[in-house]
């Protein structure tokens, strides 16, 4: 009961916070839609793809994933704010402890990522011929990718100490993951080294999972894409659990008050 109460409290708080950060919420929806309109329209006339798909159809799954990736990851990275202002220590010291914090945080971030991705997905009928039976798999893929994004966000949040690093995270982590994922252009056209990086990039698998869900040709099989997305989610959860351990038993720690890396 106490575990569930704590998880419920963390989810409720995170969702309340998300709805009150309207500029971030609107930005999270407006960014992918802007990319969809500007990139999709602009490149549609000049891009020629081996698959024969119009560019705006090709880029659509990637933009849906982008919305989920940014929404889930940035919501989870909000944990850094809690560390900086002492709320995280309070949560970790509760009877429910680390698992409840991670569970609550990841569910809330997954819901935000899924919501932001679903808004973009709602544009599907205007851009591609989507069979009614594709909606459910697409939402399932969206939820799975949002969960992975949430866990990746928690993983990043476990090691950064200041909210000032947010812009850096977007530029150094999220954009490279997106550009090297096949979301905006096929990985088959990349140089060998970048293609190899793209193959191990979990976002590549996330994008292809969405392509399968929407009935588009994909470079990675459905089984492989789903396995990687679920596997990375589980692995990131376990690693985050170690990194969020308030004792920080696996990492060196400095005395309280001796610097910025002082606590959970």
């Amino acid at each position, binding site marked *: 009961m106490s575990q569930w109460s704590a998880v419920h409290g963390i989810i409720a708080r995170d969702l309340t916070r998300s709805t009150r950060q309207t500029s971030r919420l609107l930005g999270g929806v407006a960014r992918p839609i802007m990319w969809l309109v500007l990139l999709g329209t602009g490149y549609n006339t000049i891009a020629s793809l081996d698959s024969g798909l119009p560019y705006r159809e090709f880029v659509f799954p990637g933009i849906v994933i982008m919305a989920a990736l940014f929404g889930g990851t940035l919501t989870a990275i909000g944990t850094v704010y809690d560390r900086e202002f*002492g709320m995280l220590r*309070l949560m970790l010291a509760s009877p429910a402890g680390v698992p409840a914090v991670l569970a609550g945080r990841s569910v809330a971030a997954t819901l935000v990522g899924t919501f932001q991705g679903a808004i973009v997905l709602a544009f599907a009928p205007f851009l591609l011929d989507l069979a009614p039976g594709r909606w459910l798999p697409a939402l399932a893929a969206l939820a799975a990718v949002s969960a992975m994004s949430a866990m990746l966000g928690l993983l990043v949040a476990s090691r950064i100490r200041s909210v000032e690093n947010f812009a850096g995270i977007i530029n150094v982590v999220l954009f490279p993951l997106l550009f090297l994922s096949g979301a905006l252009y096929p990985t088959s056209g990349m140089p060998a080294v970048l293609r190899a990086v793209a193959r191990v990039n979990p976002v590549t698998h996330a994008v292809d999972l969405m392509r399968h869900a929407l009935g588009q040709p994909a470079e990675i099989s459905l089984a492989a894409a789903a396995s990687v997305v679920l596997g990375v989610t589980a692995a990131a959860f376990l690693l985050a659990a170690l990194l969020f351990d308030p004792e920080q038993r696996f990492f060196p720690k400095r*005395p309280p008050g*001796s610097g910025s890396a002082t606590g959970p």
Partner: protein
Amino acid sequence: MSFAIETEGLGRDYGDVRALDGLDLAVARGTVVGVLGPNGAGKTTAMLLLATLLSPTHGAARVFGHDTVRERTAVRRRLGLLFQETSVDGLLTPEENLRFAARLAGLGGRLAHAAAADTIRRIGLGPRAHRPARELSGGWRRLLDIARATLHQPDLLILDEPTVGLDPEHRDAVWSLLDTQRRDHGTTVLFSTHYLAEAEPADRVVLLASGRVVADDKPAALRAELGAEMAEIDGEGAERLARAIRGLGAAQAVLRTGRGYRVGIAGERQAVVELAARAPGIDRFTLRATSLEDVYFARTLDAEATVAW
């Protein structure tokens, strides 16, 4: 007697740095204990160890008989915690903050609502309870934070500098809230502070310096070691006067501080006053009751603070 806190040789190293060294403590249930000491003395480390947020590198601690490492969950169920940083979410209303805290403490839906509502009434938040917490003053935020720490009626409150940065009115409100909590629920309170006067009413004071306990007794007993009254002497003739008071046999302790000398007076009060009135080079001479601040200077500063002529 059953204890709220028992520690045996409790200590914590951070690499080569020993932040806390061999803390032996037995805190009776329902008592109020102040932990004092300079910055870096080990106060916060001791509190984090007792709050189960750190594991000791040596020694052990028990809270209500539960080991703080092996029985963390059982310990956490008995604790109310307050850290130096105010843990209030400015985007939520105070009511939402309190409901969140109740949920973290394991209270279910209706119980969480009831606990939050009761707390709002108790601290008199009124209509402020439903406005974003970021609109509250610093004092109200801290008061809300303390109410948050007590809303699930913990058996032990661990408070790290509960009144830091507060004006006297809010400091008074904080201590009033804690007094009520202790009186109504028998809560044990362990707190740290740099406002030494706040530790005067405590049942007991533990003084830490460089990770070690340098004094542990009732405030009155600690003050009595220095003398009933303290003479504060500033000016170029301060050392000469302090030596003269010692020569009278009236000095129980002599401390050198940054501003001058403090001399603990034992008997011969009138003779000391007359001596000071005649002494040259004295900018300030005051006689006042000995305080915990004097004990702090005598016990926690470096060896030069206590003068032995």
